[in-house]
């Protein structure tokens, strides 16, 4: 097995994950189908409507600028996951347009969709790692969107260019676990593997769906710090759904309140008060 592990620039994109802050903003990734020359918004939802059966699940208009950190708050069923699903092109929409990193997702070709998805990092509560693979393989999978087929297959047998993956794991303090089977790791370690994968993917936009919903306060704190670490330095855009108002205000610049599929408020983090919170969660009415 390769032991050099010296971080090398990622040959596919000409950028290293190891060099945060490198000139990345505004450069179109090879293969990206759409004009990203100077995308004014990271995410633009225009008159979006999603329905489950006859019930409207979400109807929203929202713009997020590159580099912004936005928290989505609101009770269960308010449409937070639906909104995040729209941004990764995982959910169909009934009306409106979703533009992510300058690409209209509904109009994108299959190839174009893959290209834009390779620039979107997703963090789920369920982690969604492949259990029987090693931690290193799971982290390296972050680059599948940019790797060709041959290279991907070769890397399953013997890690190809493990430098960036190892560097990402080191940043999250799990470099010792590179060869361990992922399903044998503890929950906290798996969380770090999932975040390292996002780091290696080097996305322009990070979507996190309730990353701390089932964690105790201590662990939740650690995960939020890690998430901040992942988007730090580089002007990555963060869109995260949360129940925890304090965490939202601490981590993000902007807080968007959702209730019954509609945006109730959209304020800078400092201006959100307890009254907003109560309005969002009040029962009935």
């Amino acid at each position, binding site marked *: 097995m390769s032991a050099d592990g010296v971080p090398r620039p990622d040959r596919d994109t000409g950028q290293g994950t190891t060099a945060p802050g490198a000139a990345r903003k505004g450069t179109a990734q090879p293969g990206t189908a759409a004009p990203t020359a100077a995308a004014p918004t990271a995410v633009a939802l225009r008159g979006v409507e999603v329905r489950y059966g006859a019930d409207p699940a979400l109807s929203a208009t929202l713009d997020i600028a590159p580099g912004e950190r936005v928290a989505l708050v609101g009770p269960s069923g308010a449409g937070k996951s639906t909104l995040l699903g729209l941004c990764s092109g995982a959910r169909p929409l009934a009306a409106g347009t979703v533009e992510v990193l300058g690409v209209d997702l509904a109009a994108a070709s299959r190839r174009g969709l893959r290209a834009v998805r*390779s620039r979107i990092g997703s963090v789920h509560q369920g982690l969604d790692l492949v259990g029987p*693979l090693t931690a290193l393989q799971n982290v390296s999978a972050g680059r599948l*969107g940019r790797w060709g087929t041959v290279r991907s297959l070769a890397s399953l047998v013997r890690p190809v260019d493990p430098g960036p993956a190892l560097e990402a794991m080191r940043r999250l303090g799990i*470099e010792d676990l590179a060869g361990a089977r992922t399903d044998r790791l503890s929950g906290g370690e798996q969380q770090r593997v999932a975040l390292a*994968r996002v780091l290696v993917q080097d996305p322009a936009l990070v979507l996190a769906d309730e990353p701390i919903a089932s964690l105790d306060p201590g662990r939740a704190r650690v995960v939020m710090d890690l998430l901040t670490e992942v988007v730090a330095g580089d002007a990555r855009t963060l869109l995260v759904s949360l129940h925890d108002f304090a965490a939202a205000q601490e981590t993000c610049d902007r807080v968007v309140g959702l209730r019954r599929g509609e945006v109730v408020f959209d304020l800078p983090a400092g201006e959100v008060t307890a009254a907003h919170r109560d309005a969002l969660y009040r029962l009935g009415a």
Partner: protein
Amino acid sequence: MREGSPGAPVPASATPRPLRSDRPRAARWWALAAGVLVLWSLWGMGIGRAPVLNPAGWPSLRAFAEAALHPDLSPAFLLRTLDAAAVTVAFSLLGTVLATVIGLVGGVLMSEAWWGDAPVTRARRGRTGWLLTRIGVGLPRGIHEAVWGIALLLVLGRDPLVGVLALGIPFGAITAKVFAEIIDETDPGPHDSLIAAGAGRLQAFCYGTLPRIWGDLLAYAFYRFDCALRSAVILGMIGVGGLGFELGTAFAGLDYERMWTLILVLIVLGLACDRWSASLRRPGAAHEAGEAGTASRGDGVAVGRRLRLSFAAALLLSVASVLYLRLDLARLLSPETWRRAGRLIADALPPTLPSTWADLLGDAAATLQMSVIAILVGGVIGVVAAFLGAPGPSAGPLRSAVAALCRIVLLAIRAVSPSVWALLLLFVVLPGPLPGALALGLYNAGVLGRLFTETLENMDHRPVRSLQLLGAGPVQTFSYGVLPSVTGRFTAYGLYRWEVAIRETVVVGVVGAGGLGRVLESERASFDHAGMLTAVLALLLLSLLVDLVSASARRAWR
């Protein structure tokens, strides 16, 4: 300690350690051993060393294929086929009833719950009872129903009792084991509270445990019937009667039109039975792998109603079967039967070598090689068929059509028993271990293909979805997401079926393919009962060995 602060300072120059994989070293040795075993088995099949194809058989094969267009549908033969089918179904049904009764009694006695919950003062005696039952049930399970059939034919002659007993005894032992697992996996709370309230063991079982596992037990019994139907055909081929007997007769007389009629009836029966038995199982239960009790309680109500209906129908049909076969239970106790059994045992003891030790070892090796090739062939075909047959959530109409076709082919392959496949393969392949191995391989392709398909359908799709979300293409998603998730399960199923395949070699052996089964058949033809016993013991030892190896390989792989 790894839960510390995220920005923990790391020396920038720290070079990572060599990437060690924590797949246990033992697993690699197992993989190497498996490779050697496969190569040795391929060599043993004689491919490339001696002619294996039988060019003289090609015209017969063509005649056989042409006969498919006009199977014998004359009223006289149809009536005979109907009678044979009824006999086969009756054997299977009564065999299953017997197996269920044995299984229920044996399962309770084998369960740890029965002995373990006994008052502390009796714990010691309980342990012995548990162990004795385990051994008493383990032995008949190791001997294939075809061997039971041969032995019972010698004692009872051509009597319908042979078919029922030959199925009921080994199946009863298997059923007992599965029932014991179901009982032990059930939450002991209600049972224990009855014991604490002063109920006896039997009362506590009947009131506390049985009502909760009744559906699972019944569903397993119907699954056993599905297996019994296939085995009844095999028993027919060794002379017990029914469809298998007619098929063997037609083959001997080169009566291809009649063979086709019989094969079509077999497939229809198998399909109907398979669908019906599947409809009684709750989704997710993998009984075929002996993993009973893992069922989810999904659409329990509909399944429950179907179970009750099937139970009533099975009871009625059982009575009808007894009348149709004109079963005479008194024969079991007649002095004639006892005299014959005594003579058979006296003849067989002590076991003698059929020829030489070298021959016996050679036949044992051929048997082992056949089982390995069978699993190799079955596994490869099964994997391909499973990926074709499980189209995934977002498949187009063409893909879905291919999947449906694939499942039907798998069903048809399973419906035809391995001994019939061996007969058909003997058209084109010279007798020896190869046709036997291929026949077992085809049959196991049907079984493994179905198990693999279920694995693919039940796997967790979220990791795959998340790879798609980060931009991975179809090939990458498959190789990083799907393949690693199912490989372990596939390997475990393959190893489990290997244990079954080594026992099934006897089935293809008796129709002339190689191995210990052929030895058994030739000793039977020459009435050398002591030699037969040796072959049976050798088979038993060999299957015990394979069980051991397979179980430790599965452990190493996990």
